[in-house]
């Protein structure tokens, strides 16, 4: 692992032989005149969990949302720089964002299932992408619910309204819904912050199982969560990445003073 150390930031690069699904080069995000992300260059390794941590308003959610171009939906937002998905820049007007979002799934802070049945919540996206065969849909619903560790609890109530589930179940349904499309990258924006501790640990367990198949990038406010589940951690501060390294190193031997202050709870 070649490490680049300078005075202010410490950002590792992946080894040349490591498989990188997604990376950004000099990514900037503006909201009107306000620069929320000030040139972030990061690489995300395949089948690993990467945490994005940092104080509120540091830009980590904004950065995550730009990875699958959800910032397109905000009229005043402007994103420049490269977002490389398997080496191809997807931050171009020609990119088919709808096809791309199939490959880069997203789960939000607040569980947001549709007011439809559990089954329809999952089959919704598949149908939108042209899957019509009933058997294929049934199978995808079952597989993704199993992967999200929700199958055992809901297999008899697949046609019950999803809003009747508990918060943690709803969030795992949202994860199931995203992975039903067989993405290779899963973006999660504080997926457990609205959940109680038991639901949180269920979601975390789910993520640890999912990492065998997916690359996961997760924004979290909870530093224990970041250290429990992630392989890499990026510390965001005022729109910059200050430190990016293996989670173990970031939490035990941070190279930058402000990272140390943050992970040890001195500010944030």
């Amino acid at each position: 692992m070649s490490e680049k150390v300078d005075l202010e930031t410490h950002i590792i690069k992946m080894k040349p032989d490591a498989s990188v699904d997604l990376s950004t080069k000099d990514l900037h995000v503006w909201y009107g005149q306000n620069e929320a992300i000030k040139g972030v260059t990061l690489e995300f390794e395949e089948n690993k969990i990467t945490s994005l941590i940092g104080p509120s308003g540091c830009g980590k959610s904004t950065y995550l949302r730009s990875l699958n171009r959800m910032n397109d939906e905000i009229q005043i937002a402007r994103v420049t720089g490269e977002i490389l998905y398997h080496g191809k820049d997807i931050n171009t007007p020609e990119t088919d964002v709808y096809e791309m979002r199939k490959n880069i799934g997203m789960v939000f802070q607040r569980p947001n299932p549709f007011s439809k049945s559990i089954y329809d919540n999952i089959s919704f996206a598949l149908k939108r992408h042209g899957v019509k065969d009933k058997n294929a849909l049934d199978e995808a619903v079952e597989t993704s619910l199993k992967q999200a560790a929700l199958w055992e609890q809901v297999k008899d109530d697949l046609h019950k309204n999803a809003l009747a589930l508990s918060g943690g179940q709803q969030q795992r349904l949202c994860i199931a819904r995203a992975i039903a499309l067989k993405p290779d990258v899963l973006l999660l924006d504080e997926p457990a912050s609205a959940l109680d501790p038991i639901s949180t640990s269920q979601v975390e367990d789910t993520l640890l199982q999912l990492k065998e198949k997916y690359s996961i990038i997760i924004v979290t406010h909870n530093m224990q969560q970041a250290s429990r589940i992630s392989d890499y951690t990026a510390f965001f501060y005022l729109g910059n990445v200050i430190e990016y390294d293996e989670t173990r190193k970031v939490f035990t031997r941070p190279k930058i003073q402000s990272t140390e202050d943050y992970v040890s709870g001195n500010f944030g």
Partner: protein
Amino acid sequence: MEDSQKKLAEHSGKSRLEKIGKTISFLCIAFIVFVVLSILYFVASKGIATFTKDGVSLIDFLTGKIWNPGSIGENGKPLTGALPMIAGSFIVTLLAAAVATPFAIGAAIFMTEISPTVGKKILQPVIELLVGIPSVVYGFIGLSVVVPFMRNTFGGSGFGIISAAIVLFVMILPTVTSMSVDTLKSVPRYYREASLALGATRWQTIYKVVLRSATPGLLTAVVFGMARAFGEALAVQMVIGNAALMPTNLITPASTLTSILTMNMGNTVMGTLENNVLWSLALILLVMALFFNILTRWIGKKGAMN
């Protein structure tokens, strides 16, 4: 210690104020309820008199096709068939709503989903203005523009159901549109985000998620528009031709409950059959208003359950 206990047991200025406030608001609501009940009683007693005092049978009234309350029919009873007007009212209402609904929902989608800035800055004020135009102005425009157009296109007088439906369509369009806009705006943002993040296109998101979850609200908007169309008198009366005949097509003069009511109420004497039967028409209008009201509530409840 005793002092403070004493204070607790006493009526204070604050609790008196509370009582006065409650009394005033109760009196206000009691007055409103009284007025509404009085109107209901008045219309109902007058409207029912046709059947109790003048001996017209309810079935003849609702299904009779000849309206001429001053004359006696072959069976020796007055000609009080209200079916032509009932049919006229329903046809113009349904036609107007059928045409207005797609336009209103389309406009609402444009204003909320496609171009919120243009919607807010330009279309919103325009629609508010349209809501505020008095119905006589719509009727006048209908009389000067729609009726001649129909005359030139289909021949005849130009007065008729189709002219009335077009005028009503324009009249209810702003109402239905602005209610649809409110409904679409109330669809949570996270539904849209969830759908887009799953790679659904914007159109798929609008069609499959936004419109689906807004359906109860949109239905309510349409029913409100229908209620307005059903109850509109002046503008309809100006363009429909006011012939109390069973409508056989859309381009010959017809009439609605409201138009016959406004045409004839000044020409009858209180207490006579001619007058009472007009009250019976008013009673139908009242019952329909109640029906539309219950319908919107029912839709609201259904929507809340899903």
